[in-house]
Structures are given as C-alpha cells and as structure tokens.
C-alpha cells in the first residue's frame, strides 16, 4: 500500500498537462480517476517518476450532441456517462456499458478517457468503442489529431497515444433507431473485470440485416472485432452459427478467471446471446 516515490504536478489546463508530460522524462503518467493507476502504484507495479494530475480540468467533462456524433469529454466519469440522456437517446450502448463498469465507487471516480487510455483489454469500454467505430481525439504539442478506435489500441496497456499526448475526447456515432445493440459480460463478482465481454451492434436496412459489428473484451492483447462472425451474420447466418466464428483470430489469455479454451467457449456463448438480444430475438 506504499507507492514508490514520485513527483506530483497539478495541470491547470490541457496544454499545461502536455507541457508537464513533456518535461517528465518519458515515464510521467496522467492521473485522472486513478482507479487503475493508484492500485498499480500501491503494489509498486507502476513506478512512474511523475504524476500529472488532470483531475481538475473540468473543461474535459461533458457529453454533447455534435450533429453526426456525440462527443464525450475524456474526464467524464462513468456514472455521468451512464446517466446521460443524449447518449441514452443516440448511443445507448455507451451509457449502458458505463453503468456496468466496476462498482459504484469506481464509476463515480473512474473516467471514460482513463479507461480508454489505460489500454486494458479486459476493460469494457474499449471493445464498445471498437464496435462503434468511435473516433478518439488526442492533443499534443502540435495540436489535435483524430485516431480511429481501430488504430488506438495497440497492445496490453498500450495505445497509439504519444508519451506527451492527452486523450481529450471520444466521438461516438449516433445510432439509427433500428440499430439493435447489446453488451454482455461474464464475471464472477460484479466488481471484477470481464472474464469475457461482448459488444454487439446489428444495423438494419428496411428491416433486413445490413451489417453487424462485434467488439470482444479480454480475448487478446487488445479489444478485438469479431469480423468473421460479423460477416457471417451480414451474409444471412443465424446468431448461433455466426457466434461460433467469433473466436477467429482471437488469442484469449489464460489466467485465474479462466483458461484460454474456456474463454473461447464463453465468447461463443456470450456472442450468441448478445447477437440474439441485439436482434431482438
């Protein structure tokens, strides 16, 4: 419970945070809600030389309707996302999933940007962003750039963010009213990370299935898309048949929560159930 020594700075603005990160010698870490970082510090698994606290940058806490998409500030707490009316109307899978993260304490401290930038493949929201085709906005010394979710998650606890970049916003598409969705996860305890999670979106065109997208939690080093299953469903396969293909290309880990083999089976069951729910069956 005693972290190794670190320096601590409070950022007054995003640009200030970028400046502090740049001066941090490459291993400085941003502190937002702290619900992944602080336990890692206490266990001395993470030993950054400096923490840059961005917890007071209230300008990064918002949910706005931006016409074609909904923009969510990176410091928006999970509880705020879960309760947001704009998201409930236009992209309910995001608000629903935010309500499934951790426990109430985690949801009231943890932030959307934090869970994305942490790059944990066992977290719920990265797979949802991937399934949605969300865009993530990073700001650095040279200004802002937009990173597609498909390019953002690069490895276990690794993302496309540069060491002195700050994730400032996530942009999620407005879903058509006819789009079916589901987020399901299997875990032993409510507060645990998912053993496996599945985010499913089914798009319809005049009542027939126009396409599907599936995001997988904890089935590899990064959140994954279940492409083969998506294609099968779009090609007319049943949810049950499509779901069997969801593990193609996945490399599920083996750990205390389950073996790789069990996870693969679980993903197929969960994918079938999620697709059935998204299809309204």
């Amino acid at each position, binding site marked *: 419970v005693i972290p190794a*020594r670190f320096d601590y700075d409070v950022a007054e603005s995003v640009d200030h945070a970028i400046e502090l990160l740049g001066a941090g010698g490459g291993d400085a870490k941003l502190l937002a809600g702290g619900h992944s970082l602080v336990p890692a510090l206490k266990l001395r698994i993470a030993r950054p030389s400096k923490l840059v606290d961005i917890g007071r940058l209230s300008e990064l806490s918002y949910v706005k309707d931006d016409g074609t998409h909904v923009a969510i500030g990176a410091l928006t707490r999970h509880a705020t996302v879960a309760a947001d009316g704009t998201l409930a109307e236009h992209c309910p899978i995001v608000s629903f999933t935010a309500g499934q993260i951790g426990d109430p304490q985690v949801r009231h401290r943890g932030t959307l940007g934090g869970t994305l930038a942490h790059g944990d493949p066992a977290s719920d929201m990265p797979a949802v962003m991937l399934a949605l085709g969300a865009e993530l906005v990073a700001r650095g010394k040279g200004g802002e750039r937009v990173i597609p979710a498909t390019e953002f998650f690069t490895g276990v606890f690794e993302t496309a963010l540069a060491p002195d970049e700050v994730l400032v916003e996530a942009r999620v598409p407005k879903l058509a009213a006819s789009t079916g969705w589901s987020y399901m996860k*299997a875990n*032993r*305890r409510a*507060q645990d990370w998912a053993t496996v999670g599945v985010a499913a979106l089914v798009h319809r065109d005049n009542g027939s299935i126009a396409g599907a997208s599936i995001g997988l939690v904890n089935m590899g080093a990064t959140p994954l898309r279940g492409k083969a299953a998506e294609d099968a469903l779009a090609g007319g396969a049943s949810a049950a048949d499509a779901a069997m293909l969801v593990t193609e290309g996945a490399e599920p880990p083996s750990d*205390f929560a389950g073996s790789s083999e*069990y996870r693969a089976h679980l993903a197929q069951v969960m994918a079938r159930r999620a697709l059935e729910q998204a299809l309204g069956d």
Partner: protein
Amino acid sequence: VSAAAEKPGYVGAPVKRREDRALLTGRGTYVDNMAPAGTLSMVVARSPYAHARVKSISLDAARGAEGVVAVFSAADLQDDWKAAMPCAWPVTEDMKNPPHYPLTDVARYQGDGVAVVIAETRAQAKDAAELVEVDWEPLDALVDVGKALEDGAALAHPDLETNECYVWRLDTDATGQAIDDAEVVVTRRYYQPRLIPNAIEPRAVLAVPGPAGELTLYAATQIPHILRLLVAATLGMSETKLRVVAPDVGGGFGSKLDVYAEDLLAVALARRLGRPVKWTEERSENYVATIHGRDFVTEYTLAATKDGTITHCRARVTAAMGAYLQLVTPGIPLLGAWIYAGPYAIPNYSVEFTGVFTNTTPTDAYRGAGRPEATYVIERTMDALADELGMDRVELRRKNFIKEFPATIGSGLTIDSGDYVASLDKLLDHLDLDSLRAEQSKRRENGAAKQLGVGFSTYNEMCGLAPSRILGAIRYAAGGWEQATIRYLPTGSVQVITGTSPHGQGHETSWAQIVADQLGCDMDAVEVLHGDTSVSHAGLDTYGSRSLPVGGVALTYAADKVIDKARQIVAHQLEVSSDDLEYAKGTFAVKGSPDKEMTLAAAAWAAFAAHDLPDGMEPGLEATATYDPPNFSWPGGAHAAVVEVDTETGDARLVRYVAIDDVGSVVNPLIVDGQVHGGITQGISTALFEEGSYDETGSLETANLLTYLVPSAAELPSYELDRTESPSPTNPLGVKGVGETGTIAAAPAVMNAVLDAVSHLGVKDIQMPATPERVWRAIQEAKA
C-alpha cells in the same frame, strides 16, 4: 412488587450494538491509528521463494537509505530469542516441530522473513527493504498436500527426511467388523481448498517501551492474554513487564489467534532501540504473512444397511500444516475429530489425521477450524450414499439423526442437547421443496440453459472451547476456562471485566445485557472492559465460539457472587436472616413483609461506606468468577441452498439460502443473526469463490483481492434465517455459541445444490470451489 421487577429483560431482545456508533463514524481506535511520539516504522523483507537458502545477505544499501535507523538479519537477532516461535498443541508425543524464528536464513515459504528494516517513516522503511540484497540458492519446494507423502517428493524440511508431521488416530469401532463387509459402502475423496483469511483490518502491532524495562504491546489480536504469556516466554521477559492491549480490532476469523514473527520483532526491536516500533501489514502482505486455512485431502467412507441405517463412518485426512507449526496448527484437524459422524447416530467411528509439511504459508485456525472440514465431507457423502441407496437425500438424513439427548456419540463425547428433526422440519416449512422440485423438473424437461439445484446440509458442531481436562487429555498446552469480574460501584454503575477479547462480536453489548438483567440495573449503567492485560488480568480470549458459552457464563457466576455478598449485607442491615430474603431484578425483599426491601445499588453503597457491614466482611461489592465448562457446547441445524447453474457457461449463482440454526438460548438475536450471516457468507464463498493457489514452484498465484475472490453483497441473495432453540443444560444461560455455525454448514449445502442442478447431465463431482470453468468442464466430461 417494585418498578424494577416490571422491567422486561434485556436477554433475548434485539438490542442494537453499542459498539457501532464509534466504529461506523470512523471514531474507532485501531493500532494503526496510534502514533506515540518517536514511533518508528518496521517493514520485513521477505523471501520471494518458497524454499531457498540465503547464501549471503547484504544490508549496507538498506542501512544507508534515507531515514533508516536499523536493519537486522536473522543472524543479528538470533540471541534475542530465548525460545523458538510457540506451538501450543503437540498433538502426539512424536510430532515433528522444526524450530522457527521470526527471521530465517532458510526460507521455507514465500513470504518467510529474512531481514527487518526500521525507519522513521513507513515509506522509508518500505523503500529500504527493497534495498536488502540477498543471494539466494533456490531449493526444491513441496507445494501439493496430496503429494507430500509420495516417494521422491521434495522435502519441506530436508533435515526431517519426511514431510510427515504426525499421525493421530481415534478409533472406536465397537464391533471391530470390517467396514467393507457392510451392505452398502460409499467412499469419496475430497479436496478442500486453501483459504486465506481477509480481516477488514490487517494485522498491526505497536510496541512501546517504558523507562523501567516495561513494555506495552498494542496488537490487532484476538488473544491479548495468550500473546502476553507467549511473547514474554519467547523473549525471556517477565510477564509483569509486559502489558498487551487489543484496542478496536477489525475482525480475525482465527487469523489473529496467533503469535506472529512481527509481534516478536516489534517487541525485540523496541527494547533494543528504546523507541516505539510499529508494524502494519499491507493487504498483499496479508496473503503470505498471515496464516491460511483448510488445504485438506479427505477420503471419507459411510457404510450402511440396505434400508439406509448408517453403521460406520471413517475419515482419512491429509492436512497441510504449511511450512511451520504456528500456535495451534497441528490441532486444527482435531477440532473436528469427534464430529465426523455429524448429527447422525453412527456407532462405529474411525478417523485418522496425517499432518504434513508443505513449503507454503503455515495454516492454522480459520473460522470453523476442523469442523467445516468434517461437515463438508459428511454432507457431500450423505448425498452420495442416498443416491447409491436410491433414497431421498432428506429422508436418509432424518432416518439417521440422533434423536435422544443428551447423546453419547460414536466418537465418545456427549452432546448436551439438540433437536435435529425440529430444525429439519422448520427448514422444509420455509423451503417449499415441492415447488422447487417442480420448477427443477420443468427446466430439465425444457432443456433450459439455467438449471435449478437444491442442496442440503444438516450439521452439528462442538464449540465453546473448552473443558480444560479434555484439552489436557488431547495435549493442548493450556486450559479453556474464562474469567469475569463484576464491580458494583458506589454510585450504582457497574464495571464488568471480561477475559474474552471481542474483535467484532459485540461483547460490550451482549455482556451488558446479561449483567443488567441479573443485577436488575439499566444496561447503560453497565460498562464492559476488555482487551487490556492490565485491566483484565486473566482470560483466555476469543476464538472457537467460546466467548458466550464460557466467558458469558463466567459473568453469570460473578454476578451470583455479587448478589450473594449483597444478600449478606442486606440481611444484616434489615436485621433478617438471609434465607428470608427474596432477590429479583436488583431488589431484595423480605418474605412476608413486602414493604421491607433494599436494592442492590443500596447494598453497593453500604459496601463502599462500610459503616455497618457484617462482622468480618470486607468492604466493596466486587466478585470474580472463573468458569471451566464441563462439556463443549453443541449447536446444530439444517441449511438449504438453491442455486441456478448456467449450463452453457458453468456459472453457478445462489438464488436462495435458508438456514435454521439451533444455538441454544439467544442473548441478542440481532447479533446472532449477524454472526450467522457472516458465517454463511464465508461458507458460500468457500463453495463458489475463494481458493488460495500456488504454482508448482510455491509462488502464491492468488496474492491479492483481485485474484483471491472474496464476494460482495452483489453476488449473494438475502438469507432466510430462523431458529430452533435447545438450551444447553450445561450452563445457566443455556447458550451454545454461534460464531462458526454458518461457515460449518454452508459450503456443503451450496456444493450439493450445484451438483443437484447438473446431476441429470451425469455430473457426480466438482472440485470446490465450483468455478464456472470447473462446472462447464464437468458437464463436458459427463457428456463425453
């Protein structure tokens, strides 16, 4: 009739705990809250290996670190120890007990201490501990209890040339008839996983030296009295120079019923350095440095006639001691040794325990201690026997219940009282088994993904530790009595001093209820003092559901003595014979003269003033009683679990839990329900969640709350509780103890329910805990 006589009693009433206001508003006082001026912080550098020799150790870098006051290796402190760390229960004459000391140069488990750092702050001590440089020579480690006695197994202590610690037998086979000749014989083998206690407050000690060689040890402990005795003995101190204080203590479950290396280190170093030394365990440190529980392999046999009359039971247990024997490690199996027939009348009885050393954290008492281990194998095997006989699982239990009390059982002890049939009937009333079976049949017919299962556990246990003569007969070093003192103060308030040491049980409330009723005073007038050896001079502390049936009963005898003395004073002052006085609820009345009376409070003042006492009587109204129970106490009951198993994912979820417990008379039903809730949760957790596991090198894989799954309320249903009451005839309160019943009963009920849910798929056994993957695999294997 006086007004006091009209007052309803406190005993039996759901009085809210007087402890809670301070605890719930953050105003409790735990050891870590205390910081006398000049306090130093202690951190132990530990072995990352399960079995390894220290080839060399360098403390220079640590000694040079900022804020460091001192750093010691095992060799530096060896002369401080006058004895090895204590084991109070040499269960056999030839038991092996390799000596161990607070620091070592041969680590026998991951977490064994090799050096200790003292610094001005905890962070400095922690940083410096990372600078202790050890050149290790890793040795072969023995981890698996089931392989400890195999030829060629690695040896936890190579010098012993075996991993066997002891073999202990109890055999009362009256007929001598071979068990295998019985008409029906069912033998099953079970592994009960290693459990890691997680008290909400981790362990902590603060040793404060005084100017004249005296020392106060503040400790998050269940056992201030035993700790004082054994710390003094191990360090060669006079007991008179050592005061042990257990302030608010945040749970123990047996894990704070021990003498630990850190207790001894803090005292030794405070004496060396002349400054207070504090050590507070880190949560992840708790996983390796505090005792574990269970880790039993048991082969259990029931033999019966074809009509379902059970004739024999036999248990053969291999129990992991871990790397060393802690305070009562070898005795844990023995705490269940007499109840391997459960609540059933089984004449022929034999148990055999083999304790084995493994290169793991030592095991010791964990809630239930020996009795959950027995009940689990009995109740799992009762289901197997019923299936084998083609009998209803409930009816097999009912048929074999002990029905006459007191009952001398196959193992030789005598059960004080009980009514197992009544508990079972009440359980069935609550459960509505017919509806559950109908729903289960429907789901089976539909091939539903989520199948329903119902599991039963009818149990008894022996607690209220313990009759001193019996403890002596089974080679436990100390007795099992308890002491209480009651002082009726001149202004009418009452001081109660108890030798029990509560750490969450609510003794301050329950003890005040008992004393206030007996002395006829207001509960608020009764103050309960405990947990400080300078206040409570003698006691044997809190564990084994002993506090109420031993310590609570001592209170009633002390109150009797107070009343007896007051009676003499009142008789003297009213000038009547003491035989003519009738005592009720705090008032003595003269028989036949209803206007002539005197209160106990008035007698207390008279005893204080001492103006007019009977000749030769000492002033003051105070009495001490020491009570040694004539028998254990024997709770029992009937529990049922209803689970839903997702047969596609293997996920088993508890839907209902119904518990009927008979813990004798109840002093405070709120507190009893709280104990039952907590106990049941620990039992459920054993069945579905908790499992301490090591990899093959002896590295603990479940070394934090992320991987060692302690469930929360979100995973559990509301429990349905009720009681039957068979007062214990061996004590005037009729009480039996309730601290462990839930833990003892719950795990087999839940496992039996999980198995019931998937039995139609051909599944016969699942390793506990029933994780989703294990359940899924069992279904796949049954299909194959």
